């Protein structure tokens, strides 16, 4: 008896399994379904893991997102001691809050991860790019994908020479030329602050890249970067405040780091604007 439906399927579906059509359907699925459907077959796994598919899927989701109410990711930072912000709870919680018309909606917990106490101390504010969330801490930097529930702890690096108890300036952004997400972190080449100019370098970690480790940029930042800040990502560039106390003639502007060329520039600001 079970032969009948089987025959119907055999008659109806073989063509439907054609790659291009499967692609067209999968591209319209939410990320959570894709994570699950990787195990349907090897062919589906290959499509879902294809970098071109990933990029196209992101475009597709962005278009969908544009038609929805804006949504925010909220993460409470819990300070464990009064006084200077030294110890934070290692309990990372990400909530999504959608700005609905009736304003009644509640923030929904979309991701939670409990790190061992002492795993990190002070943290910087989180950064967000296309659904990825960066948490810079004084030890490692973490990248979360709250929808697929993936998390990576970026590897340690020994380039920073200054004993420093707060997070280094770090940013997360998208390099459209390679289709990869990059985390850029600045570090101190000198051991101490001196009357001299503080020398800083920049290292880059490519997420899902081939290297799997931090790579130093060819050129150094032309100006020292203000410590303990999270870079702001706009159009493939990260922007940082310049550390004006450690440079004799600091420019009036923001330091700009291009994720594509991995070069620096200064974006001027109006003279009466902070900083």
């Amino acid at each position, binding site marked *: 008896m079970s032969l009948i439906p089987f025959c119907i399927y055999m008659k109806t579906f*073989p063509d439907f399994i054609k790659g291009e059509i499967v692609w*067209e*359907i999968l591209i*319209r699925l*939410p990320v959570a379904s894709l994570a699950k459907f990787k*195990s349907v*077959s090897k062919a589906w796994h290959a499509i879902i893991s294809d970098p071109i598919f990933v990029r196209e899927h992101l475009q597709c989701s962005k278009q969908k997102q544009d038609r929805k109410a804006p949504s925010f990711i909220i993460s409470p930072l819990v300070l464990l001691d009064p006084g200077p912000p030294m110890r934070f709870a290692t309990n990372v919680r990400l909530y999504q809050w959608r700005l609905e018309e009736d304003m009644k909606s509640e923030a929904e917990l979309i991701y939670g991860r409990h790190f061992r106490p002492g795993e990190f101390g002070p943290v910087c504010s989180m950064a967000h790019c296309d659904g990825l969330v960066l948490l810079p801490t004084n030890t490692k930097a973490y990248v979360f994908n709250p929808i697929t529930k993936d998390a990576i702890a970026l590897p340690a690096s020994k380039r920073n020479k200054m004993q420093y108890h707060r997070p280094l300036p770090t940013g997360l952004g998208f390099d459209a030329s390679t289709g990869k997400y990059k985390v850029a972190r600045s570090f101190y080449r000198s051991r101490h602050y001196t009357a001299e100019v503080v020398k800083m370098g920049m290292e880059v970690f490519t997420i899902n890249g081939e290297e799997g480790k931090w790579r130093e940029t060819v050129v150094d930042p032309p100006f020292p970067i203000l410590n303990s800040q999270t870079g702001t990502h706009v159009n493939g560039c990260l922007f940082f405040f310049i550390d004006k106390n450690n440079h004799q003639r600091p420019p009036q502007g923001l330091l700009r780091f291009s994720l594509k060329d991995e070069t620096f520039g200064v974006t001027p600001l109006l003279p009466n604007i902070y900083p």
Partner: protein
Amino acid sequence: MAAPESGDGNNGAARMVTLISSDNTRFEVEAAAASLSQTLQLTILDGGGGGGDGIPLPNVDSATLSKVLEYCIKHAPAAANGGAPNATAVDRAELERFDNEFVNIDQSVLYSLIMAAHNLEIEGLQSLVAKKVADMIKGKSPMEIRRTLGFPDPTPEEQAEMNAHMLEYGWAYE
């Protein structure tokens, strides 16, 4: 031929073309509607499909073709306006209502449509049907998908992989 086709909209009478399904049924439609198909557009621009000739579509049966043409006729005016930048909200809402009802159909019809839309390269219809199938399958388990698509039962190895994946991505199966 260098002679320009003059019947196109200027004198009011819309140019008609004939399409012939795999089971030899003839459908007469406005050229503008049939031109939603990228595949047909070239033939029609070359002046084909008019008069007694007709364009044979050996891959599309009459039931599917009539459904496809229903979509094309409804969407042709908006497409003629270049994606309808000046369409009113009412027009757009009406198209959306039509689309929602249009894909509210039996699965087998849906799969015939997806193949036809793909072969005829009707972008809007491809996207509409793919979206519908995506909505239908997004809540299913990988095993259900395999059954629906008529894949053979997984080998013990594949089954082990699927189980491991389910453990890792347990949250996605809720």
